[in-house]
């Protein structure tokens, strides 16, 4: 349990499998506990089961979108830290930031950008 606690847990929500795979590998290589979800609904189900240190949420998702997903997550755990991801400079990103999201990653992004934001979040 202690070992598990010491590990940083990350939830990745994206409908793109390649993004999920990339981020999963990246954070696994960083030694994190990674859970992925394809939809917002799935992510919320996962969120109810356990606590995550950080969530990477794509804005555009089939069904519930990223912002709604983040809102649901906040209802379950108000201290949830999230990094939004988008292929656009969407307005709802700003809304998410208002709700408490750390920042927004514009696709395409590289390892450096992800880790930079992630490290900011951990502090």
């Amino acid at each position, binding site marked *: 349990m202690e070992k598990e606690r010491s590990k940083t847990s990350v939830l990745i929500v994206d409908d*793109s499998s*390649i*993004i999920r*795979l*990339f*981020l999963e*590998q*990246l954070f696994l*290589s960083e030694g994190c506990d990674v859970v992925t979800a394809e939809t917002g609904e799935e992510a919320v189900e996962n969120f109810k089961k356990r606590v995550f240190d950080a969530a990477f949420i794509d804005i*555009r998702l089939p069904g519930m979108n990223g912002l709604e997903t983040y809102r649901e997550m906040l209802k379950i755990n108000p201290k949830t830290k999230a990094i939004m991801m988008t*292929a*656009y*400079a*969407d307005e709802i990103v700003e809304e998410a930031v208002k709700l408490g999201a750390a920042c927004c990653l514009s*696709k*395409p*992004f*590289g*390892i*450096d950008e*992800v880790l930079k934001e992630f490290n900011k979040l951990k502090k």
Partner: protein
Amino acid sequence: MKKKGLPILFRILLPFLGILLLITVILGFVFYGYNRGFIIKAVNEFVSHELENTLFYFDGNYKVVINTNLNFFQESYPLNDFISAEEIEKPIRRAAAEKRFISLSKINKNILSTRFIDFSGIEQIVISGSRRIRTYQSMKNIPSGDIFYQNAAGLFKRLRVMPPGTIFFEGPFKDSEGRTTFLAGICKEEPEVGGFGGAVIIHYDLTDFINYLSQLRILDRSVAWLLSPTNDVLLRPVSEENSPNPVPYISAKKSPPDFHFYSAECKLGTDKAKLFTVIFSISPKIFSSEMYPLVLQTFIIFLPAFIITSFVAFLIAKNISAPIINMARTVTSIGKGDFTVKVNTDAGEIGTLADGINKMSEDLKKFSDEIISDKDYAENITKSMADVLIVTDASGEIKTVNPATLNLLEYNKEELLGQSTEIIFAEEGELLFKGIRAEKLLKEGPVENYIMTLRAKNGENIPVSFSGSVMKNSAGGIIGFVCISRDIREMLKLHQSEKELIAEKVRVESLKESKKTIEEQNRELDVALENLKSTQEELIASEKMSSLGFLAGGVAHELNNPLTGILGFTQLLLKQTDETGPQYQNLKYIETSVLQCKKIIGELLMYSGNGKFEFGPVNINKTIESAVCLVKHIVQTGKIEIIKQFSDDLPIASGSRNQLELVFANLIRNAADAMTDGGKLTITTKSIKMSFVEISFTDTSAGMSEEDIKKIFDPFFTTKPTGKGTGLGLSISLGIIKAHRGDIKVVSEVNKGSTFTIILPV
């Protein structure tokens, strides 16, 4: 309408008659005066003649006789013998002398008595008729009251101191028997010793003469007066009415005022003493009655003369006035429109006048026909006009309307004529003659195709296209306004949006009437209409851009996920690969390519605006300012000096602020990139006729070759080092500007610099 005045016949006739009357009266007076004078002269002469006759009668019957008688005694021997006889001889001598005296008395019937008075004043011989009277009455002691002896004594007294032969008279006086008598005496010389020898005195009776006078008739009337030297009336006419009493005038030595008198004095004796005065006193009535036939005669002569000449004058006047009256009748007929009447031409001036009238009549007929046909033609035009025609006078009162007006506004002709245009101009601001519109018409000439509203009788407002102009007479004075309006309801139904615009225009106009002139508003509204049209076009264009942006966005989004995968996994591999290993460099190439893709997609997304194009008012100067801010961190501000030359009165452009900002930022960045060693970038804005905005970006770069200039707008063409530029900036900028219906032009010279000029419609 006929003016009051005399007909021409009377105008000629009356002066004629006046002159005739005057001449007749003058001639009458001259005739009368001449004849009167002639009559008076004749009367005077007649009366004088009668007077002379009277004196002649006296001379014949008395004067000559008296002298003869007295001289008879002067030379009488028997009397001389008696005077110088001794006392003793006296009775004999007396008898002889008495015979002489008697014989004389018998000859002359006017002798009443004859006597001789001796030097001592005692009657010696007295014969009365044929009787001898021997009373020997003394002159010194006469019986009192005896008028005869008083006169005889007086006469004797006067004679006694006179030389012999002196003849004196005494009287006339009325004797004891009432007869008018007088005495004549002669002074007798003493035949032997000389000296006064006594006096012979004869008593004469004047009755004969008086009878003669009283029977005398002048102008059939008794007018003779006989006056004694002391102005006692010895004889007066039968009636003083016919012969006024002249005595008061004679004693006062005055001329009589209103009657005539003719007088003659009878003088006798050595001292030429006045014995009596004969006067014919004639009353003016007698003269007047004498003149009466003359007056009658004058009338009888001149009245018919006047009547005849008047008639002649009437004929002459009628003859003179006939052609004029004829002409007047003709002119009256012409006035009533009958041009067929002709004046009979004549010689002379009247003939010329008549010709003139005939010519005038023909001309009038010609002109009248022309006018009627012109009027019909003009009426046909107005009737046939589909548009509303309203003609007013200078005060705005309606004078003419055509059937189209009545049809459109549903008024009767009588309801509109004479009315103010107020009743058909719908809005207060539209009043042609109250507001500034009439002034505008006067000052700036005709108004054309002005959109306004007319009000029909039923209250319906009818939008019309209005044209108006001022109607002037030849002198330049305003006589009215001609207004033509076209019903544009049908047109408006076809162009609904235009109708709204026009309604809006009408409304805005009426609100701003007082502030701005109509032209400005018209122009502004026209511009607004144009803008709206262009906005529509812009919207269509922006729709296109939007779709394109949307597509680009979608493509970018779809590409972003795989690119993230490529980049991510490449970097993961790089982390796990030895930098000196053979695969490391290859992986780096992949990473570089992916980053280039990322950049292209980034720009695509940026310029596509994520598919969002919102047109609105854009302040170009402010947009440039924010574009400069946007690229401030990119531009090496230390090296590049940006000079802004902005126009102050730049019109507000319509477009997408974000897109334009990107275009400006792109041009600034390009200029900065072209001036790696620093330089000046001059940004200039100016308005072109308030309908275009020109924005110039002039740099001091090395410039471009003509070949490069041809290609710079091609997509993916870039002069920048590989990896720095995508070649999309200018291409997409041109697309954005074209979407704004503007243009970008480039002027560049090698080693001098380049100028990018953007033209945007307002």
